[in-house]
């Protein structure tokens, strides 16, 4: 009876762990990615409890789930499109079918032609007013792939992932494991605590030093260089007309000192600073709120 109950709990938890881990790769929203990963970790902690390793379950929740929570907050704070709404609107607008984030990597369907541009005329929304109505299928494809969460290597990645999982499963089933019939007798927390402070003292202290090094490293990485901050402050002062460089949104190699039309395609040139902001993929970070608003209509 307990065996059947254990199977039910095991299947439910492992289903959650595997499905949320796969869902992490499928969603278009970075925020949901973090939540899915947290759910996977919690289900894994449940499996640890089922295995009798309650100390490790507690550590899993505290370290991994807590860390992922910080990461989710981090993403909500600084990412431009943490909820994936821009991507979803794009997908709906371009009439792309397919599964979540994968549909953006391998876009099916035709690029929006005359009908779509008619629709676009009525749109006052700046974000949608990007100049993709005169696109060849190739350009359209490149644009979608450039925005997608996964690269074009995705089919190969899936094949390799399946192969590695299948290989592992076959090995697991074929290997004659030397199973022990006894259940753990000692209290795990006591035993692990004693081991950590006796036989594994050096490893324990090493881990402590590693954490210290990690904290120091992260702080040094995240800290701004004082000289760089000053330089950036100089850059953000309003540029005078002669030092502002203009470029074409379609031909980044075109650069000139005054505004005008691009010699190649005739589009009006835009200041270089806005190109950098407008050209980013959906994961672009937004450091200065006032620039983000101009990002779309370059």
């Amino acid at each position, binding site marked *: 009876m307990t065996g059947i109950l254990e*199977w039910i709990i095991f299947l439910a938890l492992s289903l959650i762990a595997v499905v949320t881990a796969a869902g992490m790769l499928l969603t278009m929203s970075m925020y949901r990615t973090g939540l899915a990963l947290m759910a996977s970790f919690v289900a894994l902690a449940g499996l640890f409890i089922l*295995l009798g390793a309650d100390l490790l379950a507690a550590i899993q929740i505290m370290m*991994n789930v807590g860390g992922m929570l910080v990461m989710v907050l981090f993403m909500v704070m600084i990412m431009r499109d943490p909820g994936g709404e821009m991507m979803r609107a794009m997908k709906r607008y371009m009439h792309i079918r397919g599964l979540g984030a994968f549909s953006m990597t391998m876009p099916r369907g035709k690029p929006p032609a005359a009908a779509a541009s008619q629709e676009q005329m009525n749109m006052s929304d700046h974000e949608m007013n990007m100049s993709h109505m005169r696109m060849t299928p190739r350009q359209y494809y490149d644009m979608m792939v450039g925005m997608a969460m996964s690269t074009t290597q995705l089919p190969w990645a*899936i094949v390799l992932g399946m192969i590695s999982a299948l290989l592992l499963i076959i090995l697991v089933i074929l290997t004659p494991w030397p*199973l022990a019939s006894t259940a753990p007798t000692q209290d795990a927390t006591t035993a692990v605590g004693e081991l950590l402070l006796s036989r594994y003292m050096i490893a324990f202290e090493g881990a402590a030093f590693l954490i210290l090094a990690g904290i120091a490293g992260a702080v040094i990485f995240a800290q701004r260089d004082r000289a760089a901050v000053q330089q950036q402050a100089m850059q953000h002062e309003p540029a005078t007309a002669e030092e502002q460089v203009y470029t074409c949104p379609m031909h980044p190699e075109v650069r000139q000192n005054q505004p005008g039309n691009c010699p190649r395609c005739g589009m009006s040139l835009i200041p270089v600073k806005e190109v950098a902001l407008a050209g*980013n993929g959906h994961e672009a970070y937004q450091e200065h709120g006032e620039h983000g608003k101009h990002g779309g209509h370059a």
Partner: protein
Amino acid sequence: MNGPGLVAYLIVGALLFGIGVVGVLSQRSALMVLMSIEIMLNAAILTLVAFWRFVGPGNFDAQVFVIIIVTIAAVEMAAGLGLFLLVFRQRGNASIDALKDLKR
């Protein structure tokens, strides 16, 4: 009827590892690659705990090993995030492919 045995847990670990492999190889954003690495580490932890329970339940070395792995994963995450935050600031995106030009 007995509960799930070693092989059942190891299969779950293998599936999680495969998903992590797909993520590491396919994702564009460095953040997503870091998260996929986390999934692979968790698959390894699950197999370790399963081995502890079914092969050597009297020997708690495996649990110590898991604690060390979790610690290293946390440090790796912090250092990786710091590094990629730096890349974001410099270049405006954290696409793994954009880092190719570091080789030049």
